[in-house]
């Protein structure tokens, strides 16, 4: 069944369409292009919720104890007299983190572009299994529905932080969010993981088996390398999170003691004996850290493609770029302990994790330098997608460098779990990955929706967002270095932090403006779907195969034969050619040599 769809399309007579009803075309579609749109739109919807939540708790942080109409309007009884309840604050940061990391930047980013680009860029009719692909999307949809539904639970959604460390997450006595809200969180994530695994397996099989003639691994565009390796990391690490979730469910509902021991709460000694919360931390971060790269690598892949295309230059150091993706992927699975330097685990283990963690800086540095060199002596076409890609490199550097501070177990002692960490990971994986998502949307919008997005709105979107991103997260490092812990409902309980209040106001103002800028994007996105300027065949003059497929989406991607590939994806401005780009399906000229890479 799984490869049947692909084999079906091997033949040449590809012109005719299958009879499709509305349901099979738009709802239960097995076509990767439609599934990618479904992922994108669901991801954007979840993104709106996630970002709106962050604005709400930013308001609370800037003006604590101040009654606000918007609080009572949106939170109702959770904001008595217009002031957010502390439990609700924790719930908002928890769900914000969960939604942004998993639903927007994992499913929304990887799901959208892996689905759209893997078949189109490697020259395949569709994913290896259209059916699994469809199931993967609908499981994601189901998990999104459950996660959103958990917001409406009487006692509130999960509120133990997106890492949901037990015992806080295991005991309903510990906080109201650890009741039904947490159950729904766990169920939603279990389904999400199933969805992610189905998707990842499909991507891996498709890339390995369905490449068109001539598309060797060393000719793969970097986007595909990134999606491929991301899928591998996902398959390796997501199951571990599933096991953590299942064990936590057992502790919560069936009285086991995997993560719990010696607990006295609300005047009662509980029966749990012999478990350890540190075990949960290990299991969680065994996924949790690779997850950072599951979020980031696709964004970097997208950026590689967009920077090369818009610089009209080959990506600098293709081999080094692939090698650094592989190195990052490998290292990402052996660094999880750097989240746990002060968890009580053996300090020697901390030394080992410091070592592996700081090693990651090396392939990351190689990537950053290679991007910069790609720009050098280019002919930069500063389209919105290109701006977001350059912006990504900028935030990747700014955020990545502070990783050297945090990855060092010694320095981590005093900045661990402070706002310094919040600033660090938002820049390096949050903002960077979001920029990757935006860059991808601006760049491949014509491929997805047959129309162009408005570039001036794109410029407005980028510049406001770029300024605000630094405006929000740069000052945040100072709050962290002042010693303020994250996940504090307010800092007013400590007069010592009174001088941080005005920095919090500055951050919130930037955050609100950044939020407004996203409305420009949303407007541009929706408006362009219906009224955008119809696209040309290859608007960005790009080399990759997706631009040879007809603008009008057809099942099977190409009429007739799938194009054959004769060169790598980065023959931009090659000497001896009139055009500044040579698509991959153009055969080598007589006497032309393919670059050895």
């Amino acid at each position, binding site marked *: 069944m799984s490869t049947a769809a692909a084999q079906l399309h091997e033949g040449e007579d590809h012109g005719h369409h299958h009879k499709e009803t509305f349901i099979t075309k738009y709802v239960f579609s097995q076509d990767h292009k439609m599934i990618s749109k479904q992922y994108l739109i669901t991801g954007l919807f979840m993104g709106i919720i996630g970002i709106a939540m962050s604005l709400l708790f930013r308001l609370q942080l800037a003006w604590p104890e101040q009654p606000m109409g918007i609080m009572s309007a949106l939170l109702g009884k959770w904001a008595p007299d217009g002031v957010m309840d*502390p439990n609700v604050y924790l719930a908002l940061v928890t769900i914000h983190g969960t939604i942004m990391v998993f639903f927007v930047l994992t499913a929304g980013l990887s799901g959208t572009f892996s689905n759209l680009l893997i078949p189109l860029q490697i020259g395949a009719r569709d994913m290896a299994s259209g059916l699994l692909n469809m199931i993967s999307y609908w499981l994601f949809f189901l998990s999104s529905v459950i996660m959103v539904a958990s917001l409406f639970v009487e006692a509130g959604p999960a509120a133990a932080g997106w890492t949901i460390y037990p015992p806080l997450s295991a005991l309903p006595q510990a906080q109201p969010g650890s009741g039904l809200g947490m159950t729904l969180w766990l169920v939603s994530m279990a389904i999400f993981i199933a969805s992610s695994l189905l998707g990842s397996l499909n991507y891996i099989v498709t890339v390995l088996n369905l490449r068109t003639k001539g598309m060797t691994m060393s000719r793969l565009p970097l986007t595909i390398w990134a999606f491929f390796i991301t899928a591998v990391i996902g398959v390796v690490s997501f199951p571990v999170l599933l096991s953590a979730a299942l064990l936590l469910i057992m502790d919560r509902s069936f009285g086991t003691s995997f993560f719990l021991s010696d607990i006295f709460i609300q005047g009662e000694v509980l029966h749990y004996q012999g478990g350890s919360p540190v075990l949960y931390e290990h299991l969680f971060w065994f996924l949790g850290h690779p997850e950072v790269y599951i979020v980031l690598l696709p964004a970097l892949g997208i950026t590689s493609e967009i920077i090369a295309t818009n610089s*009209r230059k*080959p990506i600098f150091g293709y081999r080094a770029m692939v090698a650094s993706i592989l190195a990052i992927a490998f290292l990402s699975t052996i660094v999880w302990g750097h989240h746990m330097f002060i968890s009580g685990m053996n300090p020697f283990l901390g030394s080992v994790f410091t070592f592996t963690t700081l090693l990651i800086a090396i392939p990351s540095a190689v990537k950053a330098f290679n991007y*910069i060199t790609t720009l050098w002596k280019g*002919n930069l076409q*500063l389209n919105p997608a290109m701006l977001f890609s350059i912006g990504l490199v900028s935030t990747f550097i700014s955020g990545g460098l502070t990783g050297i501070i945090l990855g060092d177990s010694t320095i981590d002692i005093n900045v661990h779990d402070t706002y310094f960490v919040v600033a660090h990971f938002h820049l390096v994986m949050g903002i960077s990955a979001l920029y990757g998502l935006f860059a991808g949307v601006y760049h491949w919008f014509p491929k997805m929706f047959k129309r162009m997005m408005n570039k001036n709105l794109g410029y407005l979107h980028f510049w406001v967002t770029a300024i605000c991103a630094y405006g929000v997260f740069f000052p945040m490092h100072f709050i962290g270095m002042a010693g303020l812990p994250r996940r504090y409902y307010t800092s007013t309980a*400590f007069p010592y932090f009174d001088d941080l209040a005005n920095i919090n106001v500055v951050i919130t103002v930037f955050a609100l403006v950044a939020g407004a800028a996203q409305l420009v994007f949303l407007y541009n996105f929706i408006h362009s779907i219906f009224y955008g300027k119809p696209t040309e065949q290859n608007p960005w003059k790009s080399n990759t195969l997706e631009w040879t497929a007809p603008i009008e989406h057809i099942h099977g991607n190409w009429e007739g034969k799938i194009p054959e590939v004769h060169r790598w994806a980065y023959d*931009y401005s090659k000497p001896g050619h009139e055009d500044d780009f040579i698509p991959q399906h153009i055969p080598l000229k007589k006497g032309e040599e393919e670059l050895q890479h």
Partner: protein
Amino acid sequence: MTILLTLTVLALIAIAIWQITKIFELSQPKKKNTQIADDDDNRWNGQLMFAFLIFIFGITIFSFWKWGDVLLPGASSEHGMEYDNLMWISFAIIFFVQTITQALLHYFAYKYRGEKGKKALFYADNDRLEAIWTIIPVIALAGLILYGLYTWTDIMTVEENEDALIVELYAQQFNWKARYAGEDGVLGDANVRFLQDFDGKNLVGIDVTDPNGFDDVVVQELHLPKGREVIFKMRSQDVLHSAFMPHFRAQMNCVPGMITEFAFTPTVTTEEMRQTADVKAKVKKINTIRRENSKALIAKGEEALEPYIFDYLLLCNKICGASHYNMQMKIIVETPEEFEKWITDQQTFAEVIQ
């Protein structure tokens, strides 16, 4: 009502954006309506890239100038000096790299902005260059790793020595308690099972079958003698907490079911700390802010805020529930004589349960 109003405003904004883009397009009739960057776009966006570089440097300098004084004062513990050194060396390195890479990135984006008819340089590889920028980070990081690990081992190796003061930090939702080992220097065994003994007077669950526990002293305020090593044993009775003492560069999680450790030697008493220039300036600034805030409170008929006096803090730094943000304990570092006097004034466990 507010939601309706918000939605109306959003709709109006959307219409406004639509109209502005319409006007923008109509005002440029000569140009082809293309949504691909042209030379004009490349020029002004390239210039903005350069401006953005200035913005990044500007916000860095501005933040240090304006907010440099919120950073923690120099460490008040022995290992904290080493910590501070390592941190500032790391910061020097990352600032250096940040300045250069951001400058190159944005300058190139400005300098090589596209023009019609220009052709980019076909430059796909340079093994030597790549080797250089692989090896330089390797060397820099090797240095940082070695220095970091050396310091880490130094800090985390807790040696039981006779002179050290043994203190248990006991965490629960949402307060801290400290238990001193008493004259025998040994903490009595304890478990949450014993918390309900003696009508709840057994605050940290000391096991009465262990004779070492009777001279233990349980308090709600942490006193530490200057110049003597303190070995902390952390416990939690309910969920994860983290004992964070930022001024001493000290932190360790409190984990139910296990005992975690951290040790440091305080070097500056609270009184000395209050007299340092950094802390004086900070307290002055905070009190100015508090006076301003008090004015608003008094206008509303509420009480004014009390003036702030510096004290070392113990904070909870692991999300632990609704009042996580207010789980704190005062730390007082004093001279050994003052400390001895204080501790002898406290009730021992034996006295409490009598």
